[in-house]
């Protein structure tokens, strides 16, 4: 070979792969940069405090009012409600798949969960709109079926696969000795699962719950289509709300380029970005800090 030695060539190749691997971090930086670039001008029109905690979102009025508090509340409430539905179902199904299911049942159930995860969000939103909304409206005699309950149910369907598959991984990786020791002490299968396996897998299960919540808070199409779109702090679970992603998606298409409203929508995206970033960093911290110890360390 002429010119460069084999070692140099290997070093160049390694450096090349390192640069590519770093693109994810670079892209994350670019996301922050391009969001801020389009978001910061809004703070010439309103203060940070009025933006975050103002209770009136009237971006097209004259004079406009850019308070996103109702949108934040809307996002939080549908996230909490969907988590309350998705966590028990997700974790219990993970227990079934990991601990109780016959291998053949497992072979069917895992793809079912994957397919559920693969359902496009716009299809779920559509289903919520044409099936669940009219049903809710008739059954509970409501002015509209597009409300918190509907959005939470649909978001729960999106969060369940995340929670279930990550929890299942965690439960499955609990060392077999733990179970055997528990059985040897005369514990029933139920007692072993609830007092030994689940506690041993708790960090993985918590990570699953946090990632499921992060998924729900950032989900757009479902809340855009079924949450109702009322930009007010809700008083009951049957009220309509306008979560942050819905507001961005609904309004960005109609707002003039680089108007205050346009910048305000980018600022909402910044809030949303950092909210989910926080969730992900917590999940990362929990899964590393409380990583299960193998049986060898006991």
């Amino acid at each position, binding site marked *: 070979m002429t010119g460069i030695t*084999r070692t140099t*060539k*290997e070093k160049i190749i390694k450096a090349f*792969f*390192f640069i*590519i*691997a770093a693109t*994810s971090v670079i*892209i*994350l930086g*670019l*996301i922050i940069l*391009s*969001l801020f*670039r*389009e978001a910061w001008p809004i703070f010439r029109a309103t203060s940070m405090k009025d933006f975050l905690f103002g209770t009136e979102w009237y971006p097209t009025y004259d004079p406009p009012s850019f308070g996103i508090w109702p949108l934040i509340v809307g996002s939080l409430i549908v996230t909490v409600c969907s988590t309350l539905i998705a966590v028990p*179902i997700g974790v*219990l*199904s993970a*227990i*079934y798949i990991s601990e*109780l299911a016959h291998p053949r049942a497992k*072979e069917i159930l895992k*793809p*079912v969960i*994957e397919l559920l995860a*693969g*359902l*496009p*969000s*716009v*299809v779920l939103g*559509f289903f919520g*709109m044409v099936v669940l909304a009219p049903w809710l409206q008739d059954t509970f005699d409501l002015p509209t079926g597009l409300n918190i309950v509907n959005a939470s149910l649909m978001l729960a369907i999106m969060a*369940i696969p995340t929670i*279930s598959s990550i929890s299942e991984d965690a439960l499955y990786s609990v060392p077999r000795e733990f179970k055997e020791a528990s059985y040897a002490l005369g514990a029933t299968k*139920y*007692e072993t699962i*609830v007092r030994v396996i689940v506690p041993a897998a708790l960090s993985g299960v918590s990570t699953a719950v946090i*990632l499921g919540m992060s998924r729900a808070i*950032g*989900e757009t*199409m479902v809340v*855009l289509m079924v949450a109702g779109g009322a930009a007010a702090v809700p008083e009951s679970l049957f009220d309509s709300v306008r979560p942050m*992603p819905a507001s*961005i*998606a609904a309004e960005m*298409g109609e707002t003039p380029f680089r108007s205050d409203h346009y910048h305000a*929508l*980018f600022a909402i*995206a910044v809030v*949303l*970005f950092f909210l*989910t*970033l926080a*969730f*992900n*960093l917590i*999940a*990362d911290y929990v899964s590393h800090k409380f990583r299960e110890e193998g049986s060898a360390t006991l």
Partner: protein
Amino acid sequence: MKSGNLRWRYIKQFLFFGLVKLAVALIALALGGILLYLLMQGYSAISWDFLTKPPTDAMTKGGIMPAIIGTFYLMVGSIAVSLPLGVASAVYLSEYSKKSRTLRIIRIGINCLAGVPSIVFGLFGLGLFVVYLKFGSSILAGSLTLGILILPTIIGASEEALKGVPQTFREASLALGVSKWQTIYHIVLPNALPGILTGSILGIGRAAGETAPIMFTAAAFFTARLPASIFDEVMALPYHIYVLATAGTRIEETRPLQYGTALVLIALVLGINFVAILFRSYTRRRKSW
């Protein structure tokens, strides 16, 4: 211990197992119910004309051919962006990296990228590709945005596939005096290929179903012509469903079209997922190590 106590312990177990099975049944019911309902409502709308003709009469009649074509372009574009980046990243993570602070930062970066909400990707694409780089709302901008969205999926699947190649393969190759890169290229990557392909297929499926990232970067309400270059806007199936279901003037009248489009999208996305799952279990069974 009294025997009544033991019975109570088994009753508790019985109740708990019932609850667990109920959870699984609910999941199966949700998936089955949604699929069955859309199938029953949608299949009458599906016809050869529906799949091969453009919409007519202000999108109240006709087919969805341009949306199918547009979604196809976006699928190809996004995988063209994410596959090289994703596989190369995974090669670094699995073959070259040593435990270090830099590695930890890269891993956190990938995890955080995976958690970025789809609408935020949409605005990022709008801010960077559409506005700053002046690509306009186009196939190019949409493919880049979707490609970045599925990048973490591709990296994760590829890394897992690379890690699944036994260490002895590498050692045998290195022992013959083959360089590290040649080992990766000729031994590790070919053996990891099935896993990488499965991950890519799942990534494509995800890209095909996403709406929010393409709303402001690629998708058009309606285009009279098919796209001529990567700088043209396209119609896309997910966005088409959203538009028909929410923005039309005659929403009730176009319901059959909406169900039909939803069914086509589901068939496409779940079909892709299903192929990936089948392919994975096929290659797993064939694996001799």
